């Protein structure tokens, strides 16, 4: 961040990580910042006054990660209707992940008549402890609501664990599906990235970022890995497959 400030940039585009957005915000209160695909709620995080009128120097696009917690569980259980016990793995160092699990998840679980148990992960060692505990708890589904750097770094371990134990899994980002996860449902980030140009254009033409409303994604994508489905012996229902935007065969 400090490198960019030394280069006298006019606009900063910050992509895809809540901590990077926080860092940009901490680095400057004057240079316009356009954020993309952040999972955090920018109002709750104290970055902006409101979505409609951000104030300050930040605007851009959120990813609705929290709002999709329930939707992901719904799609997971539609795909694998036998699921009753969902193990939720989340990054305890990301405040919004903690918020999702503590505040959003319980209502979603109740609505779908599921039982859930969550495992807070902060270090590599936490994964070593979580996996056998999830087996002991007799989970029959896995949910990873946010793809934080920690979760990304250990994604292949979670995927391998899910395959070994034949557990259907739901993630937030299609890149996880590329890495072998069963499925993901989330904002179409490519669409959000294209939308960044709109904000940059407006700011170049004199608009204040604080006057440009923060947008929420309008396009969502469902990704399914059929190789993984085959490996865990799961048949994806045709109506789910028909809704998929990306299918890995």
């Amino acid at each position, binding site marked *: *961040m400090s*490198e*960019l400030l030394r*280069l*006298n*940039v*006019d*606009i*900063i*585009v*910050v*992509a*895809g*990580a809540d*901590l*990077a957005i926080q*860092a*940009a915000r901490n680095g400057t209160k004057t240079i316009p910042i356009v954020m*993309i695909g952040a999972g955090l709620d920018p109002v709750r995080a104290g970055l902006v006054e409101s979505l409609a009128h951000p104030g300050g120097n930040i605007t851009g696009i959120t990813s609705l990660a929290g709002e999709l917690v329930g939707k992901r569980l719904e799609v997971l259980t539609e795909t694998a209707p036998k699921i009753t016990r969902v193990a939720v793995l989340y990054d305890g160092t990301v405040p919004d992940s903690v918020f999702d699990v503590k505040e959003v998840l319980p209502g979603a679980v109740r609505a779908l008549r599921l039982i859930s148990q969550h495992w807070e992960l902060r270090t590599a060692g936490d994964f070593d402890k979580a996996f056998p505990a999830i087996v002991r708890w007799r989970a029959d589904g896995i949910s990873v609501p946010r793809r934080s*750097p920690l979760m990304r770094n250990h994604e292949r371990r979670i995927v391998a664990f899910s395959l070994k134990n034949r557990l259907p899994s739901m993630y937030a980002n299609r*890149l996880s599906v590329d890495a072998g996860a069963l499925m993901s449902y989330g904002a179409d*980030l*490519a669409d959000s*990235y*294209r*939308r*960044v*140009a*709109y904000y*940059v*254009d407006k700011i*170049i033409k004199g608009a204040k970022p604080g006057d440009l409303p923060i947008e929420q994604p309008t396009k969502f994508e469902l990704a399914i890995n059929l190789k993984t489905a085959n490996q865990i012996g799961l048949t994806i229902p045709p109506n789910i497959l028909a809704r998929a935007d990306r299918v890995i065969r």
Partner: protein
Amino acid sequence: MRVASSLWSVVSKTLALSAMLFAVCFYAQAQQPKKITRIGYLVAADPATDSARSEAVRVALRELGYVEVKTLSSIIDMLRANAIATRSW
């Protein structure tokens, strides 16, 4: 977390063409607060993961009439190396 930064400089095609075609107006052009905009790009992903996304931003900017004047590749490389070496958020 890997953090890569890069820098793009874009210029409005409209402004650039105006400067060429209407030389007598260069003074007025000079009154423009900025012709070239430097865009810093901060991303918490490895370059391979991010390349398609950052390209989407560039393509969308081109569609709005902006021309990429230069991408400071040496600076990008330096920034990436520096960011990967020093950042640990």
